[in-house]
């Protein structure tokens, strides 16, 4: 699922994951609150630069950008027409406003900049390293556990789902717009939920049998080296400069 991306060797891959998480965190906050167009464009360029440095294969990159941009496409359908402001041109009874277009453009740039950074992060860091790094950074243990278990069992759930779908297929099930289809699909979803619940119970039992008392231990240790520190300083400085650009009235 994620690993196919993390095989490539890159400079970013060898950075301390804690540095990566911190940078993505501050970058995302700035991208979320910034409104000035030139700041947003800088953020987008930074995102593109990082993705290039992380050597994410292009087809994979686009595949991952599709979902978020589908959502944005819907925004473009409505925002330019519904936002009050200076009219640009009219299509029939609908008027496109300058503010509406700018607003939609801002959202597009923001989300893509953030997505690029996140893709670079996930693509260059194995998921479990990410979890341990989150723990090291003081993220509550429960969230880290949730993260691990989701990752570990999403595959098992998916396999169970495929099994159910196959067993439906081999008995000649073809989905259509009828009650039989809806009933079958609801059975399948229900079965999947029940199975997940049972699975959770069994996993917990298995953990109890091995002396689980609420603590998960991490075996990985991280150490910052010179390269990590320099990268962290560079990136944080870039984010701060852009932040200053955003909040200074005139530069």
């Amino acid at each position, binding site marked *: 699922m994620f690993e196919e991306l993390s095989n490539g060797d890159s400079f970013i891959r060898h950075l301390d994951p804690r540095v990566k998480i911190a940078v993505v965190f501050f970058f995302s906050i700035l991208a979320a609150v910034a409104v000035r167009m030139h700041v947003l464009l800088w953020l987008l360029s930074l995102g593109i630069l990082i993705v290039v440095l992380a050597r994410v294969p292009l087809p994979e990159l686009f595949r991952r950008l599709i979902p978020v941009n589908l959502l944005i496409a819907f925004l473009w359908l409505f925002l330019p027409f519904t936002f009050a402001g200076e009219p640009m041109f009219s299509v029939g009874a609908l008027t496109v406003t300058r503010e509406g277009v700018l607003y939609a453009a801002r959202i597009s740039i923001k989300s893509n900049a953030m997505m690029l950074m996140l893709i670079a992060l996930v693509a260059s860091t194995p998921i479990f390293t990410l979890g341990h790094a989150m723990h090291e950074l003081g993220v509550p243990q429960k969230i880290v556990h949730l993260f691990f278990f989701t990752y570990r069992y999403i595959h098992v759930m998916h396999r169970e789902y495929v099994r159910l779908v196959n067993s439906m297929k081999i008995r000649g099930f073809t989905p259509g717009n009828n009650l039989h289809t809806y009933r079958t699909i609801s059975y399948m979803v229900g079965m999947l939920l029940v199975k997940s619940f049972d699975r959770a119970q069994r996993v917990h039992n298995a953990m109890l049998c091995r*002396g689980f008392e609420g603590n998960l*231990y991490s075996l990985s240790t991280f150490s910052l080296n010179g390269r990590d520190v320099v990268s962290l300083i560079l990136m944080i400085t870039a984010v701060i400069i852009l932040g200053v650009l955003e909040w200074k009235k005139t530069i």
Partner: protein
Amino acid sequence: MEKNDLIIQLKDICFSYAGSTPVLNGLNLKLCKGNRYGLMGPNGSGKTTLFHIIMGLLKPTSGEIEIYNNPARIENDFRKVRKKIGLLFQDADDQLFSPTVLEDVAFGPLNLGKSQEEAVEIAFDTLKFLGLSGFESRITYKLSGGEKKLVSLATVLAMQPEVLLLDEPTSGLDDKTKEILKGVLTDLDLSYILISHEIDFLTDITDAIYAMENGTIHFDKEIHVHQHVHAHPHGAYEHQHD
């Protein structure tokens, strides 16, 4: 039989899942040091339930459990039990939850209070013992069925238990993995109870095979199977004695 050698003793255990007929009904069981029992019985005869009762995952409706001559009743008692008795689950996916093999095998020792270095060392040794050296950084969900089963066994053995409860360890395994499993269990100096439907497998690595039926184990009806199975053309089942 010395009193000190008694590890597991179950007296008159009854158990039923809410709203259904009893699964275990007046079950008695004694396991002493060095005993290697095989357990057979039809599906739903309560074999897995029995294991879960011994581990304290299910609480019996009535009856007594004694482990090393100490009664085990509440969760706290069973915490100690789980340090001595290892349970190998039927489905390896239930047992392996960590991202990597090394983390999963080290999980038990860490829970037992071992330091990180000790836990990693134990994990490496256990994997080596099972012929799984080099698996340390493999991703658990990407292992094959047989590999998953052996790694699950490693996670249990890493806790250095004195007794193993093995719940259908051979189901879904190919002959080669079965042989590995057989070798490992023979080499280990452990007591165990092994649930299986494969009588050949049981005869090879257990001292006595008992049948489970109607919620109890029939110790009076030990299934005797001749060890030299191949000398008899009609196969193992022809030579049961009452």
